[in-house]
């Protein structure tokens, strides 16, 4: 709540305000199958981010005229609970939430084989219970787990991680403080096996060289998160001891 303002985001040794190195992620945990009613669900903690994802569908489209004859309609809602932010958030969806819902949907869509489910809808609901910078990356990661849990045909999982710039240095995975007081943020999501970039946003100023660095850090971050994501899915279906080949 009351937060002392942090002036130094990086100390002389290059250590970040929370003790991380430039290429170090915050602690990440994920769990698949956390909600009883949803067709698929997942929960992610990414630093202080706490996000619940649920999938309903494929199911009948309402209203019916919105259905498409040869594929499923993907819908996505990213929403923050009023208590998820430092200052209470109005429960009505903001323009920011609507935009994030759109980029997450468009980041998930390349992974889904929607033509397998004509005339239906697939709905993805993301609820941010606590936000801490990088919530869209954590959300898309949880959403793809929930989609896999629902058993929807997918080409790949989707995994997100941001890179950014603080005190002139490119670092991975900005938290809330670094996001607000830093010089740049670049959230990204990829299909880890197919190597496609499906979500990319950038704000702040990056030189050409800094962009290359940021891209590499975000990609490496994504692959680290993918490892945790894969284990979480394996654990739900095959038990903790069965995460490798049989």
């Amino acid at each position, binding site marked *: 709540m009351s937060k002392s303002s942090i002036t130094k985001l990086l100390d002389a040794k290059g250590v970040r305000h929370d003790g991380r190195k430039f290429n170090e992620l915050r602690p990440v945990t994920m769990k698949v199958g956390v909600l009883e009613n949803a067709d698929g669900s997942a929960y992610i903690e990414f630093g202080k981010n706490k996000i619940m994802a649920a999938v309903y569908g494929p199911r009948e489209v309402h209203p019916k005229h919105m259905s498409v004859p040869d594929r499923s309609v993907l819908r996505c809602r990213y929403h923050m609970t009023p208590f998820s932010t430092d200052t209470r958030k109005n429960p009505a969806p903001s323009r920011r939430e609507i935009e994030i819902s759109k980029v997450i949907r468009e980041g998930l869509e390349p992974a889904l084989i929607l033509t397998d489910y004509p005339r239906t809808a697939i709905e993805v609901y993301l609820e941010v219970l606590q936000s801490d910078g990088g919530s869209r990356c954590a959300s898309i990661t949880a959403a793809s787990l929930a989609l896999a849990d629902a058993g929807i045909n*997918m080409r790949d999982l989707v995994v997100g991680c941001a890179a950014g710039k603080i005190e002139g240095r490119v670092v991975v995975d900005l938290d809330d403080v670094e996001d607000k007081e830093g010089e740049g943020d670049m959230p990204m999501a990829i299909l880890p096996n197919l190597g496609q970039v499906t979500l990319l946003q950038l704000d702040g100023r990056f030189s050409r060289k800094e962009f290359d660095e940021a891209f590499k850090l975000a990609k490496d971050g994504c692959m680290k998160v993918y490892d945790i994501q894969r284990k979480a899915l394996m654990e739900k279906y095959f038990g903790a001891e069965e995460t490798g080949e049989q």
Partner: protein
Amino acid sequence: MVDVTRKYVIPGELVSEGKYKNSLNVFRVEDKYYSTRVGMAEITPDSVRVIPLTGPYIPRVDDLVVGKIVDYSAFAWEVDINSCFYAYLPAQNVFGRDYSPARNELTQKFAVGDLIAAKVMAFDRTRDPLLSLSGPGLGKIRQGEVVKISPTKVPRVIGKKGSMIRAVEMGTNCRLTVAQNGLIVISGPTEGIIKAISALRLIEKEAHVADLTQKVQTLLSVKVDEKSESESDGEQEE
């Protein structure tokens, strides 16, 4: 025995590389086959397929389904069959060819809220599934407990040549009707129903485990004749 390689996979994971005649639940990029589902991959010299452990029910012609009447028009009942599509049971199929909306009242046969067992008569990508009641054991379900499981686990509940169902029926003195859409009607004594539900929950939870029939038999303390069991304890014949 055909040489089979098995492994656990998740969407996007490489299942195998090479040339295969048959494939299921994978997608191909040149010679590489990636899984589209969470499940057990089975690779033989000419096929690569993933047996999924979760997913929606997609109707197939001739499937036995259990559904709930949710609406009706002058010509058909609309049936919730636990799928992404509502199914239709044409009035003609019930009243016969000379059905006339002026003469016959649909609600005399089935009311909204009734459960029926039916066969999928027709279904393709462009139309909703059509149901039929012609066949033994089809029609209104009047008694029993209805349990829902993941439709992907139905083959496991049936077992090889019906071995799993037989084990559960013998151990519980109940009769089980297992529909392809994941709904199971259990009828019999109350204690038997409770035992059968716990057996079904075990099968659902451990569908990926080998020697599952054995586990279920232990749970219900029954012994089924060994001949129907194969060493792999695999899927129901397609």
